[in-house]
């Protein structure tokens, strides 16, 4: 689905990535590991298009995205939760999520057909959504699941897909994003990107710098997205334990290049000692 070939990039005059090749298949959770300063965030930013590629190729679903603007990449199905969350501080929570919907505006093919599904399929969707929703939110939210995707393009309604995993967000729709705590902002960053129902979710250290109780919530969310099976994930993460329990495939970066890759089972202690122990 996502193919990165010999990607080179960097900041200003200094190169960081020196020819990274990786691949993410549909529904897969691919983890990106490496010590500090090995180019994980740079790689993720280059895939999103925030940083220009100096060389190599970024392809997605058969299209060459190397020269496309970030907006077009998002509209073709990539969702990005950056390091540090990057919530719009002056916009309300509601507005932040609605901005997330922009990526589904004018999305062709896939999106259009999914909106025109016969109702039977949609109900099945909805019941799935209910069954995997977070604890403590079942009762009151269940009816709403039926209007999942009901809003359609261009409307100002917040889709169920965005908030079904974050029952706390609807209680603070009118607060400004900047007034939220770090953990709440991270939940908002997830809701914002999930609003457009991306096919590939790129998460850059989603649990960094937030309180431990929310870390577990965020991890549960990532697991539930994985068990959903509709969304592939490219995850930059520090916690080996979490990577081991959730990931399918691992790339380890060193000095801006892939130093090791393999299935999760192959990630043994020797590899960890060699590439990850500080």
């Amino acid at each position, binding site marked *: 689905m996502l193919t990165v070939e010999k990607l080179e990039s960097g900041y200003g005059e200094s190169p960081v990535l020196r020819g990274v090749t990786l691949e993410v298949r549909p529904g897969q959770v691919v983890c990106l590991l490496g010590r500090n300063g090995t180019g994980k965030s740079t790689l993720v930013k280059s895939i*999103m*298009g*925030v940083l220009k590629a100096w060389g190599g190729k970024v392809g997605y679903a058969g299209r060459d995205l190397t020269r496309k*603007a*970030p*907006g*077009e*990449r*998002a*509209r073709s199905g990539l969702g*990005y939760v*950056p390091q540090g969350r*990057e919530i*719009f*501080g*002056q*916009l309300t929570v509601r*507005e932040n999520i*609605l*901005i*997330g919907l*922009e*990526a*589904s*505006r004018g999305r062709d093919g896939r999106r259009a057909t999914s909106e025109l599904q016969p109702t039977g399929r949609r109900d099945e969707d909805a019941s799935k959504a209910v069954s995997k929703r977070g604890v403590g939110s079942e009762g009151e939210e269940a009816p709403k699941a039926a209007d999942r995707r009901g809003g359609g393009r*261009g409307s*100002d309604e917040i889709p169920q897909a965005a908030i079904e995993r974050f029952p706390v967000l609807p209680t603070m729709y009118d607060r400004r994003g*900047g007034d939220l705590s770090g953990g709440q902002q991270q939940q908002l960053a997830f809701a*914002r*990107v999930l609003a*457009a129902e991306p096919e590939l979710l790129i998460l850059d250290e989603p649990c960094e710098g937030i309180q431990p109780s929310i870390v577990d919530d965020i991890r549960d969310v990532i697991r539930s997205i994985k068990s959903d099976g509709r969304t592939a994930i490219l995850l930059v993460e520090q916690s080996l334990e979490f990577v081991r329990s959730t990931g399918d495939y691992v790339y380890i970066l060193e000095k801006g290049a892939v130093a090791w890759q393999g299935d999760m089972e192959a990630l043994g202690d020797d590899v960890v000692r060699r590439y990850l122990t500080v």
Partner: protein
Amino acid sequence: MDVVWLQLFNGISVSSILLLIALGLAVTFGQMNVINMAHGELIMVGAYATYLTQRLFQMYLPASWFDQYFLLSILASFVAAFLIGLLLEKVLIRFLYGRPLDSLLATWGVGLVLQQLARTLFGAPNVGVKSPSWLEGGLTVTSGLSLPYKRLFILGLVAVCLLAMFLYIYRTAAGRRMRAVMQNRDMAACLGISTRRVDSMTFAIGSGLAGVAGCALTLIGPIGPTIGTYYIVDAFMVVVLGGVGKLVGTVFGALGIGLTNSLFEYWTDASLGKVLVFLCIVAFLQWKPKGFVAMRTRSLD
């Protein structure tokens, strides 16, 4: 005393026109880091659009309809300046984002071209625009103080424009995109917003407002090819004084400059008044280099 009140009133009315001009500048200078010297010429475009509307009414429509031309000309001046701004953004400005010095030179050149174009089309001398009869006269407050309807109309026009801007920015999806791009361009792009389109719309709307300001200026005096240059410096002062990055600051900046301008001009004379105003601005910026309202959030760090 009445004269002072009248001067104050005139000051507010000048402020309101400055505000219309400066809003567009505040956005392009504050958010996109482009110094648009051609902004003054967009005022001129609006003024000549008003003039043309008037001529068309005089030539082709019955005289009894003439008084209604001004309402149409507001729309015409907005649309004309909007379209020229859009064109300017598409062919030139978008290559200059984040390069203030290059943009200063390039847009100054564009300004000269537009001025010459106006001279060629309409002639070098100023042209007068006849105000509609329903704006003649004034509202008598006391025996010595009468507020001209024209100035009142300008105030109302600016208020309507501001309200429309506010509704656009805070109540529509396009405005939401605009605010998102202003706050965090990269993240907005990563969420699927086409920053290119938002930039051109923002620039064009700012240009359109300058056009409306040009239309309002036709009520105050004759218009000519260089009308924009009178106002562009003041408008930049408003933006800097108000604080780059915050539109509320622009409102304060416009009020401050408009009021001090007309008061100083009344107490001294036109040129000395200007000198005093600029002295005040320099002194103020020494005291508060970031202007009235500085962005204090972490987002700018």
